[in-house]
Each structure stands twice: as structure tokens, then as C-alpha cells.
């Protein structure tokens, strides 16, 4: 029996639809700022087990790239701009983050 090509395309569409299901947990919001090439705050505390909508602001006159290798997140933030990073659910622990464009700029996300 020949299968119609559209059956495969339908499967692809179904998978994409599945991808847009909202995450189970409600997002919590947090923010941090690159200011004078430093993290503000230097340590950001976040709750364990929660999904976080993190707003990363850049108060400096040069672009920055927020990066947390362990969390597998990186985000370019334009000068005087901001970006959104979705995290989690996070496990308790300390995660080092940095500005990939200015690697001496470092901060931490503390998850409790």
C-alpha cells in the first residue's frame, strides 16, 4: 500500500504543534544588569524547581553577551538594551555566568 506523502508532513506539523505546549510550571520573573562591566547584582538568587524568565539589561555603552555554560544559555544584549533568557526548572546550586565579550565580567546565579 502506498502511503500519501502528506502523512509524513502531517507528523512534522504535529511535532511542531507539540513544541508550542506551554511549560508545566509558571514562569517567575527576575532581572540582572550589566553595569560598568559588572554584574548587578553580583549574585542573583533564584528558587529551585522553578522556571525563570530572566531579563538581562545592559546599562553599558558596549554590547554584552550573557553566558552561563552550565545552564546552556547565552544571549547577546545590545548596548543600552535588554534581552530575555528562559531558565529552568533549575536545580539547587551555584552557577557561574559571565559576559562573553568581556570575560573578566563575572557573576553567579545561586539557586536554593
Amino acid at each position, binding site marked *: 500500500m502506498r502511503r500519501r*506523502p502528506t502523512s509524513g508532513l502531517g507528523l512534522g506539523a504535529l511535532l511542531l504543534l507539540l513544541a508550542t505546549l506551554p511549560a508545566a510550571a509558571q514562569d517567575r520573573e527576575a532581572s540582572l544588569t550589566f553595569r560598568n562591566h559588572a554584574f548587578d547584582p553580583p549574585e542573583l538568587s533564584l528558587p529551585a524547581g522553578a*522556571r525563570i524568565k530572566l531579563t538581562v539589561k545592559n546599562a553599558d555603552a558596549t554590547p554584552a553577551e550573557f553566558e552561563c555554560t552550565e545552564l546552556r544559555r547565552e544571549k547577546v544584549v545590545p548596548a543600552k538594551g535588554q534581552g530575555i533568557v528562559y531558565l529552568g526548572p533549575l536545580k539547587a546550586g551555584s552557577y557561574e555566568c559571565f559576559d562573553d565579550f568581556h570575560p573578566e565580567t563575572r557573576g553567579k546565579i545561586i539557586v536554593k
Partner: protein
Amino acid sequence: MTRRLDTAGMRHARSLPAILALALAAYAAPAHADFQVRSPIVEYGEWELEHNGAITFDKSKSGRNNDQSYTFSLGYAPFEWWRIELEGETEAPPGGNLQYTATTMENMFELAPQGKYWLDPGFFVEYSLAGQHHSPNEITFGPVLQKEAPGFGGAGTLHTLNLFFSKELGPNRGDETGLSFAWQSRLLLNPYFEPGIEYYADISDIGAFGKPADQGHRVGPMFAGAWNLAPYGTVKYELGYLFGITRATESGAVRWKVEYEMHF
């Protein structure tokens, strides 16, 4: 990306012309370097240089031994949701010399910000311009899905699925719609070393699936890692070995990927 022709051949190789046509097509085919699982994540403003390679292993007279393929590409993400790459594909079929087989333009569209939904969705489209005059051009497209999930031993896991359809274009085209399926699961043990497993399947024509034994199915271990050289970019690598699990595939293949990413 071109689909494997070895499976299609069994149905059509009934006459000398068909065999000759198949031989020509097989000569131009499959970029084994397409043994890669693409991520839907786009890093805005990032340039990347990428090399993929693959070499097959089988009995010396099988016609499937030492098929080498290599790709080289330059990519850039001009927007947060779009990465474009220009790729050159080369291949040395068993017993043959290395030839330029295709110039390919790849596009990855990130359909939602990473982590916003239960899955990270993307959509992939590429157009391959054949490098050999007897070969068809080809368009390949389909969804790319990725999911981070809890793992074990304190490490998370990363699962990625590519489901691509392909159609040949141009004067030498065939009517088939190809389907390729690629799946990779990794244990996020350490950024430098993430072991995993991957699976590749190729169906020559979704209008006539045929027997599973005549399709291309491969599975095997892999590992990946990345070194951040900030502010000088990031080097990423992948290395894997694939076991052919159907009669239509070679016994094994080693495949690798090296990538350098940089913002300017």
C-alpha cells in the same frame, strides 16, 4: 543534504539503463557528512566555521567501504531567529577520488526563544545546488525539536530530533519525497565531554516505504564537547561511530564535527 540511494536501487535495478542511472546517482550521493543532528538554537550575531566528515567501513568489495565525505561551511545569524550557512560538500565514493558534489545554503529558523516552551522548536530549510552536471538539485526541509530534561547522576540530558523531507529539483530530478530522521540524546556530564547516543534513518520515498531492511538505519555512540575561549569564541566538537543495522547500510561509519563560533 542528499538522500541515500542504496535502498531505492533495489527496486529499480532491473535493467542496464536503470543500473547505469543508479550508478551515476550513487556516485553523486550521499553526503555521509550529513550524519549530524542539528540544533534549533540560533545565537544572534554569531559567525561559525564548521567542518563535518564521515568515513564508512564495510567488506572491501561491498562497494560501501571507505566512502568519504566532508563538508565545510560558514554561517552567520543576522537575527535572533535565523541562522544561514553556506556549505561546500565533497565526497570520495568507494574507490573514487574526492569530488565537489554540492553547494548548499542552509537556514535554521528558531521558532521560539530557548526554554520558553516544553520543547525548543525550529524549522530547517536548505537548498543544494549539485556540483555534478548529472545530479539533481535538492531542497530539504523539516522540523527540529530539542528538549532538556532531568538525567541521572546529577547531570541533565539533551534530546534533539530532526525530521527532514527532501525533494529533487531540476532536469535530473526524481519524483520521490525522501525522509530522513535523526535523533540524538546526550548526558550533560560536563561541557567538555557529553556522551550520548544517536540514530539515523533514511527513507528514499515516503510514498513507498518498502521493507525496513531496505531502508538506511544506523545507530551508535557519540560524544560532544565545547571549549569556551572567551573572548575569542568557542570551539565545539562531536565524534561518533554508527553501526549499520540493516542490509542496505554499511557495517559502520565514523563521523565527526568541528566548529568554531565567534562574535565580531
